[in-house]
């Protein structure tokens, strides 16, 4: 790792990874300032910046153009500015992701020392050796805990004295997460309240906002719409808790919380849920109501709780995964699928040889 300290990024490196501090320093040295926005010679930079954002929206990944590294470097902060002025949360996430995917593809082709240098710049404590790398466990779980494939689970890793063994490819995957976070942090910083977009950016902004609203009209936004209670569509874990509850048996606290928050999330009212819970042996209406209202976001922190995810339920030993849970990370998703299935079965539509259970 010590060897990498002396490495100086080239112009090409900065064009590939324009989020590096050196890229900003490079532009400063070149004397690029916000005054340049109004100059004609700056138009190609604005065009490339606009293209970065458009590519993010349309393709989900930003392309690489190394014909003129300076253009590539300078267009990055301008693109950031465009996204900030557009002021759209979806676009912020989409753009950060698209830039991180660009970086990820480029990193795949880099020599180990460059990967190691970039990694340590992003705060990773890492040792890259050929196709393998050793990453400090804290840095590993900070990012790998977001992935759901079992191979990323720490329990399925070689962990020795704080170091996690992983492949170079896997390290790059984690780096792109960190890059994405970095960009999101940059994009989250608010503009000055009186900041106005430079004249030359205005037309581009109008175009970007238009693209976003077209997209919304086409796909619609996921609102987590309430779908109501359909017992046959309940995922196995929730079904088991519901049955236990109906039989008036004891449910551990975490199961109660899971069930209550799940029911509230699918659109049941506080009254409905309280009625259900009152059958528990040690239930007390006043306390039950208080707790359910709390989960519903009517008390305390006023945040409405989302019911726990599959991985949380697994940790607590409440997961009862079956074959239809494949690819599902949240009981609510499984429930929505179940609803569609129940509707199909009710309509007499036979589903690929499966027998209906409705």
């Amino acid at each position, binding site marked *: 790792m010590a060897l990498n300290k002396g490495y100086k990024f080239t112009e090409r490196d900065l064009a590939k990874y324009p989020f590096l501090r050196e890229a900003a320093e490079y532009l400063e040295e070149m004397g690029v300032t916000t005054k340049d926005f109004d100059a004609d010679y700056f138009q190609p930079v604005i065009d490339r910046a606009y293209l970065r954002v458009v590519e993010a929206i349309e393709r989900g990944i930003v392309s690489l153009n190394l014909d003129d590294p300076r253009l590539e470097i300078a267009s990055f902060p301008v693109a950031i500015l465009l996204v900030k002025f557009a002021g759209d949360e979806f676009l912020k996430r989409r753009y950060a992701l698209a830039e991180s995917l660009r970086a990820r593809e480029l990193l795949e082709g880099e020599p180990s020392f460059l990967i190691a240098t970039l990694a340590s710049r992003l705060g990773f404590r890492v040792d890259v050796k050929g196709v*393998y790398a050793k990453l400090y*466990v*804290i840095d590993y*779980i*900070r990012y*790998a*805990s*977001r992935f759901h494939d*079992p*191979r990323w*689970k*720490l*329990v*399925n*890793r*070689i*962990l*020795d*004295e*704080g*170091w996690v*063994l992983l492949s170079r490819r896997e390290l790059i995957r984690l780096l792109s997460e960190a890059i994405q976070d970095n960009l999101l942090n940059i994009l989250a910083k608010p503009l000055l309240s009186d900041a106005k977009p430079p004249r030359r950016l205005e037309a581009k902004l109008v175009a970007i906002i238009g693209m976003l609203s077209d997209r919304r009209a086409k796909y619609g936004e996921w609102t987590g719409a309430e779908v109501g209670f359909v017992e046959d569509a309940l995922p196995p874990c929730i079904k088991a808790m519901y049955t236990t509850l109906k039989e*008036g*048996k*004891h449910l551990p606290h*975490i199961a109660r919380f899971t069930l209550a928050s799940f029911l509230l999330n699918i659109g049941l009212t506080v009254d409905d849920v309280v009625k259900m819970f009152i059958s528990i*042996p*040690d239930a007390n209406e006043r306390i039950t109501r208080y707790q359910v209202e709390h989960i519903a976001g009517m008390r*305390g*922190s*006023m*945040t409405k709780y989302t019911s726990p995810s599959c*991985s*949380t339920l*697994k*940790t*607590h030993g409440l997961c009862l995964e079956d074959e239809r849970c494949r690819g599902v990370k949240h009981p609510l998703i499984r429930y929505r699928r179940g609803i569609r299935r129940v509707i199909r079965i009710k309509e007499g539509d036979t589903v690929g040889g499966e027998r209906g259970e409705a």
Partner: protein
Amino acid sequence: MGESGEKLKQDTKRFVKSIFSRYYSKIARKFIEEPTRIASREFGFNLFDKGIVRHLSFRTKDELIEYLRRNNPSDCYYSSALYINPTASMDAKGWMGAELIFDIDADHIPTNCKVEHDRWLCLSCGCEGVGEAPDKCPNCGGDKLEQRVWFCEGCLIAAKREAMKLLDILSSDFGIREDTVNIYFSGHRGFHIHVSGEVEGLDQNARREIADYLLCVGLDPTIYLDRMIISKGVNGAKLRMIRALYDFISSTSIEGFSAIGLGRRGVEAIVNSRDRILEKVLEGEFDGIAREIGVANLRKLIAKVVEYLAVRIDPVVTLDTHRLIRLPGSLHGKTGFIKARVGSSMESLEDYDPLSEAMPFRNSDEQVKLYVHLSPRFRVGEEYFGPFKDEYVYLPLQPALLLLCKGVAYISS
């Protein structure tokens, strides 16, 4: 019991309160450990008469001790989390990080002794039984059952063994340095291990990875068949797996292998060439074992030994980044024992005897007259007491306090 029963309860509570008060006004200072950056912590207390108060904060240890002296809580808690505004409501506190905490409690460890000392009581008909409470009272069919847990040396030894396992893994696998670790006796049936430093910044998802690693949740046995990974050497987890497999394969009978679902051919292969397989186990050649007994059978073996490998922490505590945890040096309201500091090292834990060292009134020669409803035999310091059943006894203060806190005895004036 009627009116006199109510009076006994009141007298008992008054007595316990007076002893706790004596602790907090005269003794506590040398045991209370203020959490680091005390002003950024939330505090919560269970008060004898007023129930739970929380969202409090103190700037110094002196302020905290003064509060304890004035309010005499039955239980004291501080937030593992650091907050910008510890007294604000939960969403306005401003989370800055939280110690990583492991709770090892006999509740989560299967021990044989619980059948002997844990009891349940039917609140409807008064019927009692041993072990874990059933769903319904076998006598009256009532479902209002109260679980009364006890602890014994067996429980504490099991918890200690589990905590040793945890400390070993934290050090050898996670590389966690001793100077960031604090081990405490919980004051009841287990141990709390607090880890500070860089781990304080981890979110719930990252903590879940640590908990799952310790509990072996989501372990995919085929990782041990990956030559590339395995050829990188024998690390802590693999070494533990090797030991556990060796112990299981060498000590299990034909019936034992069948019981975990091994097919006839797999069982025959193991029994006929046990030595050769054990040799491969010792060398960590998992693909070699798989060739001998089949991958499916190896998976079943690994799934079985994971039961011994898992460290039985309570994941709820480890995952909770806003938890209120018992304050070191305070008394446990259900025992009158101190949540006492053990040390930082495995050695310190190995030599630790909570039943001697977490007893603030151990050397008091005060004798207390009690009516004991039911108590198994137990030890405080070097001395054994009980078993008692429906009898009047004179006991030294510490064991008397235990029975009163446990609710199995009344003060008798």
